């Protein structure tokens, strides 16, 4: 029994220590953001690396999430005889929940792992240490541009995901299942408010900051071995997913 309690205490302590380290890391990153913005090229490069290179997977997944939503939504609404509400339902669920959350999960899997393993490998092959000796701050040169790139790319990817998913809903609902095109779009326009769009935007920005931060933190602090880099990559996905879902609940509760 005392063993169990001791283990819980030790785990709690190491969790809190990790959380503290992450918070301090966030402080260091944010402190360097203004200086990094003086070199926009570094940031633009990373927006391309994390954002543009994730486009295909985001758009493919968006299309299929939308199409499934179209099928399920139609089946559900048909029972109440209100198939025309499909556009409204899909738009609201995509804007407020599915868009930001699914994009964040995909982002963690595609861009987050790439960031973590890249930084981990740079650590393992002494590249970060070499920069320090060359009087170049790796935080400023490597970490902050990657963090900013991810944080900027994520809301944009969310918007693209939602747009493609809505096209998927429309494809199934209107083209395949024969809902009236006019009422599909007009009901959607009537029901969706600017506040709903803001909710999705706020979530996208928050998840972007969280997932990018976790990826660069895990990569930068990876153990400098092949095993350590692998572990950092795995942790990036797991922690990002959990944090995204927890944050999603908190943000939803705050904004409803």
């Amino acid at each position, binding site marked *: 029994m005392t063993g169990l309690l001791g283990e819980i205490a030790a785990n709690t302590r190491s969790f809190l220590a990790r959380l503290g380290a992450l918070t301090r890391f966030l402080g260091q990153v944010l402190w360097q953001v203004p200086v990094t913005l003086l070199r926009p090229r570094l940031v633009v490069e990373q927006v391309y690396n994390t954002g543009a290179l994730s486009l295909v997977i985001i758009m493919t997944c968006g299309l299929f999430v939308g199409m499934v939503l179209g099928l399920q939504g139609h089946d559900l609404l048909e029972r109440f005889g209100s198939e025309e509400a499909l556009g409204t339902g899909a738009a609201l669920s995509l804007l407020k929940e599915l868009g930001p959350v699914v994009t964040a999960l995909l982002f963690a899997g595609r861009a987050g792992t790439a960031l973590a393993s890249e930084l981990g490998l740079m650590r393992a092959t*002494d*590249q970060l240490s070499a920069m320090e*000796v*060359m*009087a*170049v701050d790796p935080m400023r040169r490597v970490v902050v541009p990657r963090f900013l790139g991810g944080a900027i790319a994520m809301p944009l990817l969310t918007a693209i995901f939602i747009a493609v998913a809505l096209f998927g809903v429309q494809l199934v609902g209107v083209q395949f299942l024969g809902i009236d095109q006019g009422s599909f779009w007009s009901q959607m326009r009537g029901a969706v408010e600017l506040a709903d769009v803001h909710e999705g935007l706020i979530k996208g920005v928050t998840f972007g900051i969280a997932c990018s931060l976790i990826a660069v933190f895990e990569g930068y602090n990876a153990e400098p071995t092949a095993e350590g880099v692998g572990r950092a990559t795995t942790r990036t996905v797991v922690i990002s997913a959990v944090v995204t879902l927890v944050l999603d609940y908190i943000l939803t509760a705050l904004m409803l």
Partner: protein
Amino acid sequence: MARPLTASNESPDTARPGPDERALNQTSKPAAGAGPTADADNVADLTGVDFAIDGRAIFRKLDIAIRRGEVTAIMGPSGTGKTTLLRLMTGQYRADAGRVSVEGRDVATLGRRELYAMRRRIGMLFQNGALLTDLDVFENVAFPLREHARLPERLVRGIVLTKLHAVGLRGAARLHPQQLSGGMARRVALARAIVMDPQLLLYDEPFAGLDPISMGVVMRLIRSLNDALGISSVVVTHDVREISQIADSSYILSGGQVVASGTPAELREHPSPVVHQFMDGLADGPVTFHYPAPDYPAQLLDRSEGA
């Protein structure tokens, strides 16, 4: 003084010795082993340095002096903290006690800005080269220039090509680090280390894992760069035979302390058994072949331990 390797090794730093002084330093090499005295002839000094990682003592009361204009070798068995020693000199680690000074200034007292200014005058060659994998050879060598100086592209190109020519890899400028052999990667890293015209060059195991030809090339480069640029070099290595040919003075570390120092010739005649074992590469001696273990026959006959 003839300087065949590079044309741009003069910096406006007035605190540095002029070419004449440097030439003087090189010709008047001390016959005796360099003692740990902190004088102006030393580019770096470690005095009474204690250092521990995770409670494990790496150095105890370590004294080392790096003399200006010389090639100093730091030798010792694996795991004696030779790389740690270099990191103490670059300020990446802080000594627990004692003083590490570079160019007469205590590294521990330097603020971040001063520390970075000091590092610009130090070049370091990492064991595996540590080239940035997302840049090609040219951009790797240009990296410190682009980070620290706003120079016109023509000038950057000129400097980088000069440095690459010095290590014989001007033709490899557009290759990527993945396409280089181990020896080539190390020479590119060397070109990068000298691109800012440092006063002090640190080499971490420059010969490890190289074929005999590459080894000879790197060996000659270390000596000729040191003399042509009028700088000081510290070479951390356990390749005794190679370094003995080019070093002016050597230190042998063991158990966190200097066990012997002097010219390569003096070390060969050294009475200490540790030095003798290390210089001649004997498997057993004061540094034992066997990791501490219980009695051999008793352990073999013992049936209780794992069947």
